[in-house]
């Protein structure tokens, strides 16, 4: 129950996970976490464990699906993939995100 502080901006982790799966296809949890860290280039201190509740949340919403497979080191691992609904959701969220960022940027420009 004790919330561990996440330095990932609220609500953006779902977006990042969806985008990662849309770009790279089927991945296990570790793969997703690594990819997000790589893209962030160290700008993001991700507690890798936090992606698992996020994955479950996305799966409950039907935006991703999971199945069991074998990892590159031959261990049983769970693989996730984006669904059609997930792609639609991603498009919608990217659109929203871009509009939000654009708006915030305009506001910040006003400041100078």
């Amino acid at each position, binding site marked *: 129950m004790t919330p561990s502080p996440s330095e990932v901006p609220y609500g953006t982790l779902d977006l990042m996970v969806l985008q990662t799966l849309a770009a790279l296809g089927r991945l296990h949890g570790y793969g997703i976490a690594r990819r997000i860290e790589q893209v962030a280039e160290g700008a993001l201190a991700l507690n*890798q464990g936090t992606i698992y*509740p996020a994955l*479950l949340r996305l799966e409950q919403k039907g935006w991703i699906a999971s199945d069991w497979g074998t990892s590159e080191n031959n261990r049983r691992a769970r693989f996730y993939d984006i669904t059609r609904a997930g792609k639609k959701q991603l498009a919608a969220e990217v659109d929203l995100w871009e509009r939000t960022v654009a708006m915030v940027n305009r506001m910040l420009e006003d400041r100078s």
Partner: protein
Amino acid sequence: MNVVRILLSRVRGMFGGSTRDRQLTDEISAHLELLTEDHMRCGMTAAEARAAARRDFGGVEQTKERYRDQRGLPWIEDLWRDGRHAMRALAKEPGFAVVVILTLALGIGATTAIFSVVDAVLLRPLAYPDPDRLVVINEATRTLAAFPVNAMHFSWWEGETQSFEQMGLIKEITVNVTGAGEPELLSGARVSPNLFAMLGVRMQLGRGFMTEESQSGRDRVIVLEDALWRAKFGADPNVIGRTIAIDSDTYEIVGVLPRDFRFPALRHLMPVTVPSVRPQLWTPLAFRDAERIPLGAFNFICIAKLKSGVSVAQAGLELEREQATIAARLPQRIDLHASVVPLQTQIVGRSEAGLEMLLAAVGIVLLIGGINITNLLLVRTLGRRREFAVRAAIGADRGRLLRQMLAESFTLCLLGGLAAVGVAYAAMQLIVFAAPDVPRLDEVALDARALAFTLGVSAFIGFVVGVLPAWRSVDVDLTDALARRPGGTTTGRGAGRTRSLLVGAEVGLSAVCLIAGGLLFHSLFNLLTVEKGFDAQNLVTATVRLPAAQYPTIEKRAAFRRALLERVQAIPGVSAVAISNQLPLRGIGATSVLTLEGTTVPPLERPALDVRVVNPEYFRTWGVPLKGGRLFDLADGNRLVALVSEFTARHAWPGADPIGKRIRFGVNLDGPLYEVIGVVGDVRVINLDRAPAFSAYVPYWQRDSVFDSLAIKTATEPAAISSAVRAAIHGLDPDLPVSGIQTMEDVLAESTAQRRFQMSVVLLFAAAALVLAGLGIYGVLSYAVGQRTNEIGIRLALGTDPRAMRGMIVKDALHLVAGGLLVGVPLALVAASSLRALLFAVAPQDLPTVVGVCVVLTAAAWLAAYIPARRASRVDPLIALRCE
């Protein structure tokens, strides 16, 4: 759509937890391994890599916990876990749990039972279509608030008013029924043919009445009540078309009412005190000549149905106008009014004050019980402060602890509520069986509403009693709680003060209950010792009704009465026999109007007069003294004579001698004049709580009556002669049903039954409140003594007198009581004003009652303090100090 899917997936997630947990563990360990391998590839040692992997991953357990929360419905799982935990904790202290659950079961059970009665009687609408449009119409004058209706006025209203869709009359009858088994005296009603349609009743057999059956001569048809049909006709489906003899006239049975047809006793429909019961048989109402006299008999019940959209007030205004029109057309100048009352109000209005009082009393008891439980929980919390401090210190969330404490009180209350259902059922049966003269009691049931009420009250109490202890248990200064050894010296003053305040509240609330009980007790005592004006000892009563067919003239009736009196007088053991048209304490059935010779007072402003048609022996039999003049005897023959009561003599002819004055009965100025020949003592004839008023007695051979009630004074046990009385009556007329054979002591008891019932229940609740408050005081004091053992030991060691020690504890108890009374007594005095209608000859602010209650509560507090005080005085200083 999405919400449903998420919910479904979460509900699914609540099950198969162990498999899912294993999968998650697998997934996480795979993750960690991959991470470790990556780190090792970058040149770390195995140990460094593992540590780095864990760091990168974050808390494994926290992740799992959050994952689980996301997976299922955590609050349900927590609730379940808290519930189980609470059950375990309670099982460890069965004594505590049993006391609390029992308190709650009794408190909630009794509250539910009384709520069900209040709900069924007062709150639920009547079981007729459009119940809120049904009203009762009463007439009124400036001096008389409400009385039944005159038939001519009703006919006028029927023709002239616009507010009503329908209106109908009901007239009570009591009839001898022969031709179907034993002859029987049954109660019935003559009703307007449209009454059943107005009430939305469909017969289970046959038909209701037709409009033309309200014409004289066509009214010889009858509708039976279901119970009578079963009892008298064995539920014969072919009963329609059969005939029975009612007072020797032949009536054809045309219908049987449905089993679930509910109709109140007729007395509940009337604004006056009468003993009328629920009708068993119904005939159409065809007016008789005597009923069509202007300002004659006012004895019809009028039920009407308002047109849709017309309010009670509008209908009342219209009727007022019509009454003024009627009054203007009368030869005498009178002041005529009318009132329109919702049918439900008319039926249950008189029960309202009593039932609401019972509900308030039981609510107070439940409240006191709840406070006691709060106190018990508080004490328990104090014992567990360390446990909670430890749990908080190792990271337990306060909200979580709070929830767990509340779960315990909820569990207790829900268990209590469960047991309460049984208690409620039993208590309800008892109330329905024992409550005298409450309308609609047959509609009381332990239904879904009652169960919902139980559940609601249980949950509410669970929250109320739990929230304070729960808050206290988590609102802990950790260092303080952890530093102190278990069972250490003193606790904060705050907790003690809270508990004292709670106990003070208990004392105050029980004072309210006790004062209410005391007032009712005082009322009943006053009523039982009131000057009745007659002597009920060793009296047996019996009633017959002479049918007009066999006894058409007053001569024939008088002859029967004379013969009957002789026969009964001859029964061994009988010392005196009285006959009268009505027994005392049976309501206003004998009421007429007192018209003095030469009066100029308008008819409706003349006083109501109770006229008893009696034999000369009546006064000796009932022990009514002669105060002036002489009694009548057979020698008076046809010379019309009357006796009046002292009250009548004083108020009708103030300052003058009543002997020789002449009076008429009724408003008719052509009626026969009776000469007053004597004055007798005042008697409470209508009811014990009704002060004696205008009253007159005339010989039975001079004035007719419908009923003949015997009162037989015996030298021995009165019950033994009832069969001899029956035999004497049947010796004269074997077809005459005899009813109402009972001792006058029983009649007397019946007439006070309602007050006795109310008083018993309230006193029972008051006793419960007293015991609970006593236990509360005891609990607070003995806990305080336990906490202060060290201090007391030191004081004793320093030479304090043990008796002074004892006095200190008792003083604490008396402080609690004084505080409680200071608030409780004023509260009770305010509340008691609403009891005014239930009291008799007692002011709501009755000083002896208040003083008595204060004494009782103080004594109870002293008693409750006794054991703790003795323990305090016997503390062994050595042991107390060694505890340190």
